[in-house]
């Protein structure tokens, strides 16, 4: 049962982590709204999520030795690498900055909301497990 806890929360964890990373990228964009030559960046959340969920063991990953088949497997988490891409500029400014404040603020709010949604899902999972553990 407890060895399955990890996979139970895997989706929520990956989603939260990626939302977390995206929040950081968008925060960088907003912070650099006045920096000359800065190019706004973002990544495709759907693609990143797909990559994480279907990820195989990265080559050369360290693996702990298991001496008994009943040992819990210790496959290390694949590092959550995301492919950053530059945003297509809508109104490029003369100093080479491509941050569009409207887009960034919308994305920031959207991402924050989706982070909270993922968080509620995780919360519900915990509540579900909790009720399964309780004696009726």
């Amino acid at each position, binding site marked *: 049962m407890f060895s399955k806890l990890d996979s139970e929360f895997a989706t929520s964890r990956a989603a939260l982590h990626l939302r977390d990373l995206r929040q950081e990228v968008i925060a960088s964009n*907003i912070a650099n709204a006045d920096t000359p030559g800065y190019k706004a960046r973002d990544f495709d959340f759907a693609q990143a999520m797909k990559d994480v969920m279907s990820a195989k063991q990265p080559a050369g990953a360290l693996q702990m030795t298991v001496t008994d088949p009943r040992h819990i497997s210790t496959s290390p988490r694949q590092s959550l690498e995301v492919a950053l891409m530059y945003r297509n500029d809508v109104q490029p400014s003369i100093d080479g900055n491509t941050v569009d404040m409207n887009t960034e603020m919308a994305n920031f709010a959207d991402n924050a909301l989706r982070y909270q949604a993922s968080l509620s899902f995780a919360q519900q999972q915990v509540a579900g497990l909790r009720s399964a553990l309780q004696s009726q």
Partner: protein
Amino acid sequence: MSLFQVFDIASSAMTAQSIRLNATASNLANADSATSSTGQPYRAKQVVFSATQMTQNQPLAVGVKVAAVSEDSSPPRLVYDPKNPLADAKGYVAMPNVDVVEEMTNMIAASRSYQTNADMMNTAKTLLQHTLQLGQS
């Protein structure tokens, strides 16, 4: 948790914007300072922002730092005032090259950016608080 990085990013931007606001304040205050300790009229100061990585191995988090504070090299504004002791042989006084309109727009832009970053920090704080409550019924 990289949400903590949002605080670093936002605060770096807020620091940079407040330095810009400082420069604007000193430019506006000295818009009429025809002379200074060097004997030259005051020159408008402009800050140069540059993007900087917050941590070595984290290419996602990019903050702002002030790369330089440069002096505006445009020629001083010449005002005809022969009574002024600083006037040259033709009666012109060299006044600072501060463009008041430009400084006012700079000021508004800086304060808006500052507010946006403060908002961003607030959002990150809310998200983190909710995350800390995860699993508590």
